[in-house]
């Protein structure tokens, strides 16, 4: 047996301490991994299980705060079955009006489409009546875009036009007739134009 030296004891303690620290670090990483594997799976994979829905509600504040919320439902459960686009009718103080079209991807050049694609996504959300709170903001923005100090905008109407895609088995034509709906009418306030 080797004689003990004065340095042997601290060296032994140090290696013990290092081992303990490494063990604690490994445990922390394992907890981290298990936590994220569970919460991401529970959050993303569609389920109607009451247990999973309750669990989602519990973790929701953290997922939302941390930016780890996610959904992967592109074109599902069913893709859109109509082509649509938005316009705005701006009515000015003198009674004149102007049609302001939202950028339409199919009418833009390839390069412009790359830059303006966010408008497609925004318009898709604008259609959703659950997100109707977006409409006043959109109307105000359009009023500012079309501002004319000598003849200010007084009213902005948001218009959607859509045409159903005819199901593949139904016939020869791909698209149905175009429909129109003026779905929101906003009275512009002077402070909106600031």
């Amino acid at each position, binding site marked *: 047996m080797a004689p003990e030296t004065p340095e042997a004891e601290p060296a032994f303690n140090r290696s013990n301490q290092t081992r303990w620290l490494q063990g604690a670090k490994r445990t922390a990483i394992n907890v981290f991994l298990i936590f994220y594997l569970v919460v991401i799976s529970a959050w993303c994979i569609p389920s109607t299980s009451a247990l999973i829905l309750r669990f989602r509600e519990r973790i929701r504040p953290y997922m939302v705060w941390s930016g780890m919320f996610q959904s992967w439902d592109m074109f*599902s459960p069913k893709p859109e079955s109509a082509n649509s686009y938005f316009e705005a009718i701006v009515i000015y103080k003198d009674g004149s009006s102007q049609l302001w079209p939202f950028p339409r991807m199919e009418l833009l050049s390839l390069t412009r489409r790359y830059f303006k694609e966010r408008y497609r996504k925004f318009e898709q959300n604008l259609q959703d009546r659950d997100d109707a709170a977006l409409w006043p903001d959109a109307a105000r923005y359009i009023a500012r875009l079309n501002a004319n100090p000598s003849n200010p905008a007084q009213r902005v109407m948001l218009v959607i036009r859509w045409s159903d895609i005819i199901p593949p088995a139904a016939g020869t034509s791909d698209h149905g007739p175009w429909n129109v709906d003026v779905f929101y009418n906003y009275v512009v306030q002077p402070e909106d134009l600031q």
Partner: protein
Amino acid sequence: MRLRSLVDAWNRFFFAPQSPVPIGLFRAIYGTLVIATLVLLRPDWLAWYGPHAWVSLSTMHQLEPGMRLNLLAVLPQTNAWVEAFFWVFLASAILLTAGLFTRLNSVIVFICLASMQQRNLYITHGGDTFLRVAGFFLMFAPAGAALSVDRLIRIWRGKGDSQLQPRRPWAQRMIQFELAVMYFASFCWKIQGLPWVQGTALYYVYHLSEFQRFPVPQWLLRPTILKLGTWFALVLEFSLGVLIWVKEFRYVLLSLGLLFHLSLEYSINVPLFQWDVLSAYVLFIDAADLERAWNWIRSRLSRVALPVTAQRL
């Protein structure tokens, strides 16, 4: 005994050291995609994120309540601050791509990306979401250990070995997991919809004029072909979510996935989405194979470069 082998498999999967080249390459591609996202957003930056944007901060809070990691909500609401945010974000993304102060910049990029998306969730697509969640795990990865300026500096200072040191890949595994979950969740969502089960979903997708990019040959738009394409997409998404973990299937699935995303990139206009997803494919490639591919490219390049040099001489 079975529990022991399960623990061993867990430890091997998350902690067995491996080359940091795949995560280094992913970091460079990831950073490039963040830069590209910012460049595309630049012309409408204030329209989407400014104090007088399409969606106001108060509307955002009303529609998406709750505490959120969002610097743009705490910065003063002026154009100058929102512009400054853009430039800091862009600079950090450039440094992350180069691998300079990698850890710090991975944190800044994640916070800025999360803030930008939280500020206006109504213009984000799946590719943005993937960048955000992958960026979270990238902060914990040894992303600057290979293919980075940080590594060059370490070597110049004599602190680093010229040989790459294997690192524990647990953070890389989580990004791989995110990719697999993305495919599997997409598959689960799709099979809940009749058009996907009946095989008509792609018919509708390819008749949405706002998505169309380059012209697709007419024979590919026949209902029978689109039906087969719809079902192929389902099978592929399931496989990329589940079978990707089986080594024997991996490269075949990655190749099919690459073809699938490139065909979508050609035909459907969702800028950067396909590249955002494809970026994580490099994490599934063995470092040895990446090295072989790099050597092959280098030999090809030198074969092309040599005659040119000889001509000049």
